[in-house]
């Protein structure tokens, strides 16, 4: 089932932290990794992220499941940049016909892949420990985003899993009517498009009904809303932010000291 619910133990320290603090910390670490053009900075950041996994309360299985595709993407980035680099300088490590792997492109490719890894891992750790409802609460209360937009998106998010079930229902109903793609690719594509259209029409109709039900409970009243649950920055949340900043600075400092550091956009 399609779901964005948190997969962590909700009593873990990072799971309990303020959503804004987590998003900001993840953004800080990712930005550092993306701006650094070397391989050591993202590697150090990745090590730091690995070190905090025990504090997130996420079990290894669900974590691996969520990271799988993102890491695969990072691996692809590495491979593509290594194989299709314009200048294959450095020592040639492997040469098989048109396939050539040289050391410099390999290092650059690995650096690029590692940066994707850091951004993906930081994002997954942040969202896997955050309940969307808490994030929406924090956004409206701390960052003063529009409740109409934020809570509206949250309600829409809750309806997402229904789409999968609806898709199966439509497909079944159509088979019962004698409508099926079979082996013909053109017919399959047309059927896919029309099923998608039906799904969208249904989703819009449901969204309209939901909006009406929300307004009936006063969502569109002009009174400023109160909050059943207060979201604010506590000492632990400031600590998380400070730690993220410290780790980012330390990674860059170490890389500079080691002599590998370079900024992504070199002048």
């Amino acid at each position, binding site marked *: 089932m399609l779901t964005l*619910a948190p997969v962590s133990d909700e009593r873990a320290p990072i799971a309990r932290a303020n959503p804004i603090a987590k998003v900001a910390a993840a953004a800080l670490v990712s930005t550092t990794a993306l701006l650094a053009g070397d391989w050591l900075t993202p590697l150090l950041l990745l090590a730091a992220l690995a070190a905090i996994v025990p504090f997130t309360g996420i079990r290894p299985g669900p974590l691996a499941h969520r990271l799988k595709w993102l890491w695969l993407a990072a691996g692809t980035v590495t491979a593509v940049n290594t194989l299709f680099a314009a200048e294959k300088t450095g020592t040639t490590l492997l040469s098989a016909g048109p396939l050539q792997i040289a050391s410099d492109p390999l290092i650059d490719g690995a650096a690029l892949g590692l940066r994707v890894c850091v951004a993906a891992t930081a994002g997954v750790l942040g969202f896997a420990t955050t*309940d*969307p*409802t808490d994030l929406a609460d924090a956004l409206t209360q701390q960052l003063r985003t529009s409740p109409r937009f934020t*809570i509206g998106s*949250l*309600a829409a998010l*809750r309806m997402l*899993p*229904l789409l999968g079930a609806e898709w199966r*229902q*439509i497909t*079944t*109903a*159509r*088979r*019962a*009517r*004698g*409508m*099926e793609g*079979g082996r013909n690719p053109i017919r399959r594509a047309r059927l896919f498009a*029309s099923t998608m259209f*039906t799904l969208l029409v*249904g989703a819009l109709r*449901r969204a309209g*009904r*939901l909006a*009406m*039900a*929300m*307004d*009936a*409970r*006063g*969502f569109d*009243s002009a*009174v*400023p*809303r*109160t*909050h*059943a*649950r*207060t979201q604010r920055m506590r000492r632990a949340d400031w600590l998380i932010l400070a730690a993220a900043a410290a780790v980012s600075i330390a990674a860059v400092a170490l890389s500079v000291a080691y002599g590998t550091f370079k900024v992504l956009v070199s002048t």
Partner: protein
Amino acid sequence: MISVEFSDFGWRHAGRRAPAVSGVDLRIEPGERVLLLGPSGSGKSTLLAALAGLLSTDSGESSGRVLLDGTDAAARRGRVGILFQDPETQLVMARSGDDVAFGLENQAVPAEEIWPRVREALAAVGFPYPLSHPTHALSGGEQQRLALAGVLARRPDLILLDEPTANVDPEGAEAIRESIRKSLAETSATMIVVEHRVADILDLIDRVVALGPGGEPVADGPPEAVFAEHGRSLAEQGVWVPGAPVPDRRGGGAGPSRLRGEQLTQTYPGAARPALSGVDFDLREGELLAVTGPNGSGKSTLCLLAGGLMKPTGGRTSVPGEARPLHRLPARRLTTRVGSVFQDTEHQFVTGTVRSELAFAPKAAGWARPRIDARVDELLERLRLDRLAEANPHTLSGGEARRLSVASALAAAPGVLLLDEPTFGQDRRTWGELVDLTANIRDEGTAVLAVTHDRDFAAALADRELVLRRGEVDREVGRC
């Protein structure tokens, strides 16, 4: 408590020529509990939406006035709570407690008062789960009770219930009515309910208002008086008037076997136990087999497997003259063997007109043009759809759409018809039409299997009844 008054009220939806309601004059005193009746299309839901302040000026044009305690209803919507039919599109939040709190946050209730009021409202409807219980894990009936708690927590002076049990199975519906009963006893709020199944809610109301086709009240008074005087005409309009007799349309005997299920088993991915396990059935020409059982007993799964619409994890369904099991037949061939009709007609319509809808399956099956035309004309006449031949299926009324879905399932002349909850949410008139239609189809030699919660439907039609329980056959009852 609050008084309600419509004076010369009218409403026309944007883009429609005819008004949904016009010239409505109606007064309801504070604390009254009113049942609003009327044929479908008489504008009952429009009146409730007007009271809830949900008719915005950009969605249509209004005339006359709607007053709550003498002032414009749109200005007092905070005092009105409304419960709709569809449980799925009423819940906003992922956690049950948050959902009830949502309406209180909107009302700017101080934070420290929110949770006590949430608990109080959940207790009033008898909600059995903790505050953090996920809303998607609730059954339809439970979701509807949670939505009711969301309405009650706001302490409305006027409670509106728009067919609150129409989309829920009988057990769930009874639990909802129990919640309504309990919570109404604790409040002095004025209440207006729209409901076809009158007998079930008689004890909740003290006044009945029946609307005519244009929304004007045609009968008004205490329930006994209204039903004694207007019972007959109300029944003709589709109201389930208490005490109306159930017809007897049992069949005249069964012929040879037309559809056979052997050891049917289905386990859904990730499920702890099979939805269906080792079920056998044999459906014969000219009989109606009713498949009954509580929620989650595997009825709908059996219907899908019987119709060849899903691959069973074990066992097979077959028809005589076909070597392959049904789920392996191409769709265009399947429709010439078995016709399936689902509860929700919406997804079953695949073309733009009633006529092409009926021609669809025969065409896919490769019939010749003259044969298709003859078949379509025959069905249009038999199911009284001829007047609607060029209409768009999605614009049909509930009863018409149901007739069309049955007709299109029969179009390619299958010997077997499968019905999943055919009478769900239908008014009394459509119900009567469906009983007659199904009986006629069966008596002309089609084997019919109907999955149903509806005791009256089974009593009127079933020759045999297969009772399922937890995915297995509990018992089979012969009724001839």
